[in-house]
């Protein structure tokens, strides 16, 4: 699987409270959440984000609350992938579980700039920056996580196990 899109870039420690403020958590409707995505950090995000866009950020992306509403809001906004130097661990799990592709790649996170056109291949971990003509390489996911992702997320994986009589 691969995606291509324009980059929207943010800094370090982007927390889930700015990805989706708690005042909007009285609903879990993805479209409703998307209307307020990144609101407290970047009011313009909802206007400028286009389907397929890629969010690139620094260290500890998604730190703070465990709210799954954060990756849900990004996904429902049309974001096709998040590339970061590092991810906070709950956000990392949540993204895999709900099927928001994420890639941990310090080199790419550092080099890619706002507005760059970037292509990401998840199978090989290859990231190509078409604007700069650079290529970066992320470590592929461990086998188990690849199995989770290729099953279509955690729920599909558990369902598959249940059908196999494991539940």
């Amino acid at each position, binding site marked *: 699987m691969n995606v291509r899109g324009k980059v929207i870039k943010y800094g370090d420690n982007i927390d889930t409270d700015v990805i989706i403020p*708690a005042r909007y958590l009285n609903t879990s409707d993805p479209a409703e959440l998307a209307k307020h995505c990144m609101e407290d950090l970047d009011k313009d995000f909802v206007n400028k984000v286009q389907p397929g866009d890629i969010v690139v950020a620094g260290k500890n992306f998604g730190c703070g609350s465990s709210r799954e509403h954060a990756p849900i809001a990004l996904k429902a906004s049309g974001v096709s992938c998040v590339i970061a130097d590092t991810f906070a661990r709950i956000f990392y799990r949540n993204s895999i579980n709900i099927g928001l592709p994420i890639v941990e790649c310090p080199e790419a996170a550092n080099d890619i700039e706002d507005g760059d056109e970037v292509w990401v291949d998840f199978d090989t971990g290859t990231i190509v920056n078409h604007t700069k003509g650079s290529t970066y390489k992320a470590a592929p996911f461990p086998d188990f996580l690849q199995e989770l992702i290729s099953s279509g997320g955690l729920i599909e994986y558990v369902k598959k196990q249940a059908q196999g009589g494991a539940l």
Partner: protein
Amino acid sequence: MGMTMTQKILAEHAGLESVKAGQLIKVKVDMVLGNDITTPVAVKEFEKIGAGKVFDVNKIAIVPDHFTPNKDIKSAEQVKMIREFSKKMGIVNFFEVGQMGVEHALLPEKGLVVAGDVVIGADSHTCTYGALGAFSTGVGSTDMAAAMATGETWFKVPEAIKFVLEGKPGKWVSGKDIILHIIGKIGVDGALYKSMEFTGEGLNYLSMDDRFAIANMAIEAGAKNGIFEVDEKTLDYIAEHSNKPYKIFKADEDAEYVEVYKIDLSTLRPTVAFPHLPENTRSIDEVGDIKIHQVVIGSCTNGRIEDLRIAAEVLKGKKVHPDVRCIIIPATQKIWKQAMNEGLFDIFIDAGAAVSTPTCGPCLGGHMGILAEGERAVATTNRNFVGRMGHPRSEVYLASPAVAAASAIAGKIASPE
């Protein structure tokens, strides 16, 4: 190779002799937790699995605490949905308004978590139960849903950082000051993906409420979990609150730590985290002149009885500054009643503070004390991110209950000394 406390608990729950850092394992869980924000999403995902029933009606706890007593129609609908789900599934530990409390104060108090347990919760501060010598960590709603169906979850075995606490802290230095000091030192991603293991003779001077506050904020350093070595105080607490069997796991002598920090508690000062990250810490001696508009004393970090007692000690016979709203939120019904019976409410109300029913409320900018543009609060809560307590241009300063109470009186960030 030896194992850390966390690794030993995980190995046992995975049915393995031993595990090592980096290994992906499947573990059995002793408790699965959710709140009124995360459980609705989990219920939708659970229904997709088609399991029909939960793995164990006694090992799931659902605590509507964030927007309760419900602040609006949408949040009331969310609680209604999870209430009906709990009834339908026969979930024993659903805590209604009137019995509920802030989840991470409530579960230990109800004896639902003991030493040696593996607990996952769809709330990032689930790491609080490390104070009891349990492995506990926050996950999202989908992980909660899968665990409700299967009783299992997957983990990558974490590396660990050891914190050796030494010496006796001063009178006004609490668990909150210790963890803020540590986060200031290692940063908000200083323990990313790792365990924080707390040990050392300094533990002798830390009450269970201090330890809950410390373990609670392990997530604020990015940690997977924070965990304390079990001692007499832990065992006394468990004996008083629970009938569940427990198991003590001690780190091996040759357990591997990626880093070891020695922290002399006697040298620490009351500590405040400035906006907008918990790592922006300053000692109380360096805070300068910061005028404030609100004080919040409560939350899963600092809404326990000792927190209220020390706030009362500071507020006794004093008045809250006329420019400040001081909101005090006992974390559970039991703590509320205890505080009332000890006369703490007389002190708070005479001082001009408001006392609320248990709720997470203002901590996450939900309700019961939202900040307007340009306002500043000193809060005993755990996060001071942009917009956390209200307007994106409001500010939250994190501090201990003693500093918060002293600040309420002074109208600016102040020392209780």
